[in-house]
C-alpha cells in the first residue's frame, strides 16, 4: 500500500485529473439515474383499469342531427348494443373523457351541508351503464351504472354518481360514503353516491395523477365528439379494431370513426416521460464510456512510463498476478477517492436540480449502487492495460538499465 500511495502522490496532477473526472461523472450519473427512476415509476404506475384489453373509439359526427341530445343518446345506445353483440367483446360503455386520453375537466365538491373549507377538487368523467365492468374497475361498495341512471333531458337534476375510494374518504371521513349526498355547486340538486371503486386516475395521461375521481351518468358526449370504450377478450384486441369501426360506421356513416388501443393513447400521453428517460439513458451510457476511455488511456500511459519499474519487480520475483493486482489496487484507490468526492458533488447537484427538474432527493441505496457501478467500470478499464503490463518480459523491460 505504502509504495502505491507514494506513487499516486508523486503523479499528483494525473491522479488529481482522474479523481476529478470520476467525481463529476458520479455526480451526473447519480442524478440522471434518480430522474430516470422517477420517470420509470410514472410509466409503470398502475391505472386501476384493464388497459391492455381496452379499445377507445372516437366519433366525430358532422350531421346536424347530432346536436340533439336525445338523438345522440339513442344512436349511442344502438351502437353499444351492436358492439356488445360482437364475438370477442367483453363489454362496452360510453365515456367522455376516457382514462389516459389527455385533457379533461374538474369540479369542486363537498359533502352536502359541509362547510366551504372542506371543498375538494375532483377530475370528472361522464359515462354510461356498465362503465365499472367495461373498464375492469374494482367495485368496493354499491353498484355499477344502469341505463336508468342517465337522465334523458339535460339540465339541473339529481345525479347518481360513482366515486373512487380516495374521494369517498375525503368527503365522508366517517366512512358512510355509500348513499351520501354531494354538493357540486347547487344545494338544490345534490348528487348521490351509488358506487365506490377502489382506484382510478385523471384522464390527463402523463399529468398530475390525481385519484379523487367523480363519474357522472351523462354519456352523450357533445355534438362534435362522442367516445366509447370497448373491452375485448385477451388477445382479441388487434383483430377487433376494424370490426368495431365497421360495425359503428354501418349504423351511421355521417361521422369519422376511429378505434385505437387505449395503450396508444397512454403511450402518447407519456411520450415526453419516455423521451426524457431515453435521453437520460443515452447521457449515462455516453458518460460512462468517456470516463472508461479516460481511465483506460491514463493507465495505458502509466504502463508505458513504468516499463522499467515493472520489469524490475518481475525480475525480483513478483509474478504476473502481482503486477495486475498492483494496477487494480491503484485504479481502485483512484476510483474510490473520486467517488467519495463525487458523492458530495452528487448531493450538491441534486439540490440545484431539484429546483429545476422536479428531481427527487437522492436515496442512499442509489448512491451506493452508483459507487459500485463506477468502481466496476474503473476496474474493467484498468484491467486491460494491467494485463498487458503483466505480460512484459522482465528481460525486455530491464534491458535499458
Amino acid at each position: 500500500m505504502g509504495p502505491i500511495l507514494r506513487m499516486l502522490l508523486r503523479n499528483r496532477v494525473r491522479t488529481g485529473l482522474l479523481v476529478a473526472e470520476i467525481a463529476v461523472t458520479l455526480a451526473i450519473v447519480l442524478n440522471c439515474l434518480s430522474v430516470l427512476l422517477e420517470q420509470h415509476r410514472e410509466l409503470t404506475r398502475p391505472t386501476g383499469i384493464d388497459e391492455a384489453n381496452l379499445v377507445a373509439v372516437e366519433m366525430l359526427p358532422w350531421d346536424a342531427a347530432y346536436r340533439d341530445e336525445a338523438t345522440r343518446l339513442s344512436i349511442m345506445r344502438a351502437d353499444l348494443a351492436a358492439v356488445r353483440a360482437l364475438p370477442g367483446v367483453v363489454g362496452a360503455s360510453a365515456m367522455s373523457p376516457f382514462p389516459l386520453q389527455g385533457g379533461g375537466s374538474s369540479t369542486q365538491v363537498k359533502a352536502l351541508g359541509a362547510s366551504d373549507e372542506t371543498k375538494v377538487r375532483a377530475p370528472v368523467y361522464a359515462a354510461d351503464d356498465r362503465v365499472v365492468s367495461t373498464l375492469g374497475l374494482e367495485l368496493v361498495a354499491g353498484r355499477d351504472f344502469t341505463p336508468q341512471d342517465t337522465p334523458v333531458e339535460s339540465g339541473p337534476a339529481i345525479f347518481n354518481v360513482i366515486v373512487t375510494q380516495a374521494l369517498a374518504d375525503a368527503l365522508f371521513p366517517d366512512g358512510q360514503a355509500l348513499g351520501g349526498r354531494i354538493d357540486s355547486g347547487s344545494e338544490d340538486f345534490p348528487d348521490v353516491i351509488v358506487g365506490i371503486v377502489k382506484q382510478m386516475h385523471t384522464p390527463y395521461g402523463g399529468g398530475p395523477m390525481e385519484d379523487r375521481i367523480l363519474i357522472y351518468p351523462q354519456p352523450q358526449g357533445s355534438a362534435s365528439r362522442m367516445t366509447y370504450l370497448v373491452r375485448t377478450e385477451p388477445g382479441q384486441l388487434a383483430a377487433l379494431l376494424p370490426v368495431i369501426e365497421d360495425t359503428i360506421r354501418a349504423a351511421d356513416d355521417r361521422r369519422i370513426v376511429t378505434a385505437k388501443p387505449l395503450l396508444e393513447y397512454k403511450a402518447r400521453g407519456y411520450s415526453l416521460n419516455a423521451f426524457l428517460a431515453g435521453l437520460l439513458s443515452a447521457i449515462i451510457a455516453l458518460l460512462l464510456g468517456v470516463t472508461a476511455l479516460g481511465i483506460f488511456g491514463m493507465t495505458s500511459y502509466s504502463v508505458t512510463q513504468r516499463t522499467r519499474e515493472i520489469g524490475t519487480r518481475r525480475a525480483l520475483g513478483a509474478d504476473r498476478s502481482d503486477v495486475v493486482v498492483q494496477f487494480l489496487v491503484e485504479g481502485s484507490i483512484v476510483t474510490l477517492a473520486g467517488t467519495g468526492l463525487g458523492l458530495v458533488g452528487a448531493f450538491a447537484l441534486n439540490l440545484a436540480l431539484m429546483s429545476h427538474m422536479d428531481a427527487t432527493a437522492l436515496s442512499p441505496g442509489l448512491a451506493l449502487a452508483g459507487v459500485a457501478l463506477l468502481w466496476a467500470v474503473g476496474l474493467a478499464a484498468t484491467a486491460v492495460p494491467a494485463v498487458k503490463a503483466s505480460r512484459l518480459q522482465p528481460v525486455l523491460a530491464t534491458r535499458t538499465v
Partner: protein
Amino acid sequence: MVLYTLRLAWRSVRATPWLSLVAVVGLAVGIAVPTTLISIRYVFARNPIPDKSDVLFNVRVDNWDPTAQFFDIKPGDPPKHIAYRDMVGLMESDLPVGKTGVASATVFVFPDLPSVRPYQAMARLCHADFFSMFEVPFRYGGGWSRQDDRDHARVVVLNRDTNERLFGGEDSVGRTVRLGEHDFSVVGVLDTFRPLPQYYDVINNAMGDPRDVFVPFELGLEEELGFSLRGDTDSWGSYSDYANPMDFVKRGEFNWIQYWVELKPGDVEAYRQWVDSYVLTQKSLGRFPKPLNNRVTPVMEWLDVRDMVPKQVTGLVIIGLLFLVVCCLNLLGLLLAKFLARSGVLGVHRALGASRAAVFSQRLAECLLIGVAGGVVGAFLASISLRVINATLPTGRVAAGVLLVDGYALAVAIVLAVLAGAAAGLYPAWRACRVAPAIQLKIN
C-alpha cells in the same frame, strides 16, 4: 510561420493516431451532448418575434372567485385567460394600434370533390388585426377587415397545407369553401408561417403547427354554423343561472380567450390605467369581487409567466455542461500524457534553440487542431442527434421539424470547442514548455 506551425502540429497529431483519434472523438461527444441540449432549450427560450416583442402585450383581468384558489398559475397572478364579455369590453379601447382575441374551434370541411370525405379542421378564431400584429405572411390575398369582424362576414383565411389540400395550391382567393353548414369565401392564403414558440397561443398550442383555417372570432360562437370551441377553459359560478351552455360562454365567468394588443411605446401606462378603469366599471356592475389585479404583459415576459422553457430542459443543460467538463478533464489527461511522453523530443527542440514561447505555441497549435476537429465532429453529431430526437418526439404535441436549428447548434458547438480546447490545452502546453533540456538529453 503560422502554416509551418500548423504543419508541425498536424505531423505531431499523426504521430500518435490512436491517441489523437480518442482525443477528438472524446471531445466531439463532449461537445455534441451540451450542444444538443442547449439547442433544445433555445427552441423554447428564443424570441419568436424579435422586432415586435416589446410592443405586443397579453392582457389579463382578475375576474376570479374570491373563495377559491385559481389552478395552474403562479401565486398572486390573475387567471391565465379572459372571459368573452371582457374581451368585448376591452375591445372598446381605441388606444391600441391593434387588438385581437385568440381562441380555437373545430369545424368540418366539406371538400367539393365527392371522392374526398369530409374532415375535421382546426380553426383559429381571431380578429382582423391578428394578421398585421403578428406579421403573418400571405401567399395570396390578405386578411379581412375590422368591418368584416363587425358584420360577422363569412370569410376565411387558409393555411398553406389546407389550400394545397382543397385547391391544389392554386390562388384560391375569391373561391368558396364549405365549413360546417355554410359556404365561406376565401380572402387569403398563408405563406409558410410557423412562429416558435407560438407565443399568442402558448396555452393550447405552444409548439404545434398553426391552425388550418382562420375565421372572424364571432363566427366561432354561432352554433348553427357548426363550430365547436376547443382548448383549455376555466370557469366558476353557478351554471344553473344561464339558459344554455353558449349563454354561459358568452355571459358567465368562463375564461378561455387569450387577448392581445399592440401598443405604441408611450401608451403602455395609459393603457394599463384604461384596463383598471374598465374593471372598476365592471365592479360597479357587481362583477370582479377580488381586488384589482390586472396585467398587461409583453411577449417575452408572458412566455416566462407560462413557464415556456420546461424546467427539465434547463436541468438537462446543466447536466450537459458538466458532461463537457468530464470530457475536458479527459482530454487534459490525454494531452498531458502525450506531451510528457515526448519530453525527450521537446528537450532536443529546446537544446537546439527553440524558445519556450515557440514550444508553447507549437503545443497549443496541436491542441487547437484537436479542438477544431472535435468541434466540427461535435457539431455534426449534435445535428444528427437533433434529427433523431426530432423524429422520436411525439407528433401532435410538437410540430415536425421544430428542433432543426443547425445554424444555432453550429455556433454553440464552435464556442464550446474553443473554450474546451483552451481549457484542456493550456496546462499541458505550459508543462511541455517547462521541460528542462539538459536533463531530458542526459536521460536519453
